[in-house]
């Protein structure tokens, strides 16, 4: 299987801070790659750097065979990258419908695809014409994901989707993401909830201090409690 996204020696500076210090990894096509690590390890920065929201100061980022590290955010998005940021970033002044209209960049909203999305997130159908700002946190997260998948994307970058959500909603999210994966999407996902990560992940990357410190199959990490303990400490246990 070929790699859809590869990062080679990527460094990112934010102001005077050197956040990413040589990040190397590959995201295989059609798989879910989990990016784990403690807070401040550089996970969010990695996603933002891929998205072009923070410029890489050094290194190479290749998406589907083409260099993108110098591209602007809209150009990178137009190459088929969907982004679900940590803060969800739904447009709270717009309705649910209007948020999804903006998610559908190239065409009008497709009814069949909407029905598919409503299957996972019925709340979005119920609040179709409500302002996104009036939704609950979980519903906003659903909307944010729905906005990223309302058109098919090659690669989805998802930043901690389960953060602060009730367990039932987390289950629904996991089901949805599994289904998206089944449809052939490639996903790079930051996750603190190890349960969710184990459910979804094919491969796993662990970051610390701005670099990848472990990479391998999710199943291996899931089976090896000692390794989990060493790499991830207690930070993940609390979510189990």
């Amino acid at each position, binding site marked *: 299987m070929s790699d859809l996204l590869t990062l080679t020696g990527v460094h990112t500076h934010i102001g005077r801070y050197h956040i990413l210090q040589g990040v190397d990894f590959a995201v295989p096509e059609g798989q879910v790659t989990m990016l784990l690590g403690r807070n401040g390890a550089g996970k969010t920065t990695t996603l933002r750097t891929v998205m072009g*929201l923070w410029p890489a100061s050094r290194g190479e980022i290749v998406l589907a065979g083409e260099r993108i590290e110098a591209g602007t*955010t809209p150009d990178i998005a137009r190459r088929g990258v969907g982004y679900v940021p940590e803060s969800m970033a739904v447009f709270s002044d717009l309705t649910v419908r*209007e948020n999804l209209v*903006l998610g559908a960049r190239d065409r009008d909203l497709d009814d069949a695809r909407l029905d598919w999305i409503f299957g996972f997130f019925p709340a979005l159908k119920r609040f*179709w014409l409500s302002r996104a700002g009036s939704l609950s946190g979980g519903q906003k997260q659903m909307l944010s994901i729905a*906005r990223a998948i309302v058109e098919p994307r090659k690669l989805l970058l998802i930043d901690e989707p389960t953060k602060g959500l009730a367990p039932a909603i987390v289950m629904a999210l996991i089901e949805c993401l599994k289904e998206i994966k089944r449809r052939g999407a490639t996903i790079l996902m930051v996750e603190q909830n190890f349960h969710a990560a184990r459910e979804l992940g094919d491969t796993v990357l662990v970051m610390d201090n701005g670099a990848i410190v472990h990479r391998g199959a999710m199943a291996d990490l899931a089976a090896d409690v000692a390794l989990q303990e060493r790499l991830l400490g207690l930070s993940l246990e609390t979510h189990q």
Partner: protein
Amino acid sequence: MSDTATSDALPKPKRDLLPVLLPAAFALLMLPLVGSASSWATLLAASLAMGMMIFIMASGLTLVFGLMDVLNFGHGAFIAVGAYIATLVFLPLAGWSQADSLLTNLAVLVPAAVLAMGVTALLGLFVERVLILPVYGQHLKQILMTTGGLIVAEQTLYALWGPQIIPMPLPASLRGSFIFGEVAVAKYRLLAMLVGLAVFIAIQLVLNRTKIGLLIRAGVENREMVEALGYRIRRLFLGVFMVGAALAGLGGVMWGLYREQVHASIGDELTVLVFIVVIIGGLGSVGGCFIGALLVAMVANFGGFLVPKLALVSNILLMVAILMWRPRGLYAVTSR
């Protein structure tokens, strides 16, 4: 699209209507103070006309700020340039403009307005690329650059047209008034109201019914996410900037006709009013800008009638009062 889904579960978001009632309340309050109903109505008409003209000029400024956090101190230059460009059409075609036929008059008025808007839009393109793009994201330099732009534009107008005041008489069919009972409303004021209202409705329709409008509203809230969805917001911004400049140009033409004269200093003069309107309305809010323009015009007209000495200071008092009530203006749009 099937939207028969039940949407009763959520309470409707509360519309903040208090600011909307403000101009109406103010107008009613003035009625007993003015005394005579007919002068009250005349003053109200003058306020509405002036308010609409200021709104047209200010709307672009507030949108540009809301969308990209860019404050253009040279916005007044577009107003002045628009007015001067209109004289290019009005003066050679004075015969048509003063002919006693609405159609002939419009044959001057419409091309003048269109030309003014076209030129100011192009000037907007130039200003955005040359003055704003290089210092994008730096407020201090933005203010300095655009202030410098204002000086240069004003001086260029003096160099090209000379320092004298240029008369720009109203077309013949826009002179005089319509009489409604005891109330006389100048025809031109009615036109100004209609144009202003049309611009307001057009902006609202674009913002609420088109994808570009959605993008602008989304961009005001979260620029970064709009880009992450694959939209080139810089182009959108350039477009908004040009439209804002064109609207300022249109406002300049209308103001020039209202005063029946044109001078480069109208840029400075109106910048202050436009700023007060934009601050009162809340930076970035078109609705707030609309209400702010009405309030400023009412305070100017009624204030000028009741306490002539206070005329210009009254706007400052209005601004202070509004900001005491809502420190970020009537409708605070951005969290910036």
